[in-house]
């Protein structure tokens, strides 16, 4: 399998087949929380793509060049790698990263800062961001693969979110039976959308 083919597979897999929201069920809370209107969904999508790409890059650098290498503790003569620290470390690194990005954005690009607005801090502890970091390390992706996977996973998240938001905007006008109004019809819709995405399975 050529390298280009491998990346294509990674891309399609991340966006459609193993869609973060609809197949892996990660990042459900923003999926339901900010999908009421299309423009907030777009804002959230932008912020998620931005953070997930950056987070996969940084965490895979840390994982590949720090945690995977065995270190010997001086004076104690213990040799170990620190792979078991990855979840704790990823949480800390992602939270710090988002903080940093927010601070820098506020100064460097106020329009982008106000566009991403409240969504940036919201993503700090989003499980989709955490998920992409752990999947990268579990699959032993290198730094480039991790970044590509992170970016396209976020695109998959954005796709699901925008689709769902568009459907929910239509639902506002639909005559929904009273027991199904509000969140229940949204959950049913999400389920049907997830079933539709099963159609992509076997693509790669």
């Amino acid at each position, binding site marked *: 399998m050529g390298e280009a083919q491998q990346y294509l597979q990674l891309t399609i897999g991340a966006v459609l087949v193993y869609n973060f929201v609809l197949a892996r069920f990660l990042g459900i809370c923003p999926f339901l929380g900010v999908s009421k209107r299309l423009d907030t969904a777009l804002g959230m999508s932008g912020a998620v793509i931005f953070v997930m790409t950056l987070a996969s890059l940084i965490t895979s650098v840390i994982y590949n060049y720090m945690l995977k290498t065995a270190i010997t503790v001086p004076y104690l003569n*213990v040799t170990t790698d620190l792979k*078991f620290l990855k979840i704790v470390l990823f949480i800390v*690194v992602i939270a710090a990263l988002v903080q940093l990005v927010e601070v820098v954005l506020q100064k460097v690009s106020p329009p982008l800062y106000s566009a991403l607005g409240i969504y940036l801090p919201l993503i700090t502890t989003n499980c989709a961001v955490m998920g992409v970091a752990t999947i990268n390390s579990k699959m032993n992706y290198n730094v480039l693969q991790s970044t590509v996977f992170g970016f396209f996973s976020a695109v998959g998240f954005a796709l699901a979110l925008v689709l769902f938001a568009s459907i929910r905007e239509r639902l506002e006008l639909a005559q929904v039976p009273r027991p199904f109004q509000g969140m229940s019809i949204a959950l049913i819709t999400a389920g049907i959308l997830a079933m539709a995405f099963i159609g992509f399975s076997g693509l790669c």
Partner: protein
Amino acid sequence: MEEYGIYIAAFAAMAIIGAVLGCIIGIAVKIFKVEVDPRIELVTELLPGANCGGCGKAGCADFAKSVVDGENAPNKCPVASQEQVAAIAQALGVELGESMKKVAVVFCGGDKNQEKVQTLYNGVSDCISASLIAGGPKGCAYGCLGMSSCARACPFGAIEIINGLAVVHPNLCVGCGKCVDTCPRDLIKLVPVDAKVHIYCSSPEKGAVKMKVCSVPCIACRKCVKAAEEGQFDVKGFLVGVNYDAEKLPEADIVEKAKCPTGCLLTADKHVKIEESEKKDKGEAA
């Protein structure tokens, strides 16, 4: 000691990474510090903090920014009291601006007891929906539908539906104007808080037509116009209304003087009292 080595390694690694990240963020905050006008924070604190959006801005902080930038005068906040506005104006050293506190009034007096029900409405309990379907259940095509659209919109809980009629509690209303847009029949208007009396009717129909569907309409008999000073009431066709732009608004005693035959000329307090007493009667009867 060796079996503890791994814990020490983990502890050290986390401590180092934590310290490094902390330093990076600390330095970044120093380097990328954004100077925020301290006056914005000051004004935000002086504002009521209701975040009602009555000023047209996204919230109190957003409004504070526009005040500091000189885009808005402090009195554009409909919720702030005279003292609050004065404090903000003093803090910024700007003109106070002419401030007129306003309250919302629902110009309809036709509750369940007064108004005939024309059709049976079984749809969604919402005024906007009801007004779309054959004009709703009530006989008067201009009356309050009483399905809480305005009450739900009110962030301060100042509108109560009593006997199927929306009633504004003037002491709770801050005059943000959110309800005004929700009423599909445009019954709600913001009026100066000094206005003591109102004519609770908005129907432009002829008196006889109104009397067929409602027992408290304004039939434009002009008794109030004659009893009041010139310019205090406006006659528009078959409907009389208080002229809220008048230099001297009609006093509360006009209700006694005018002897309104249908009882649609009321003070705001009296209106609330009447509706509440009718609620009580009905409760006892049932």
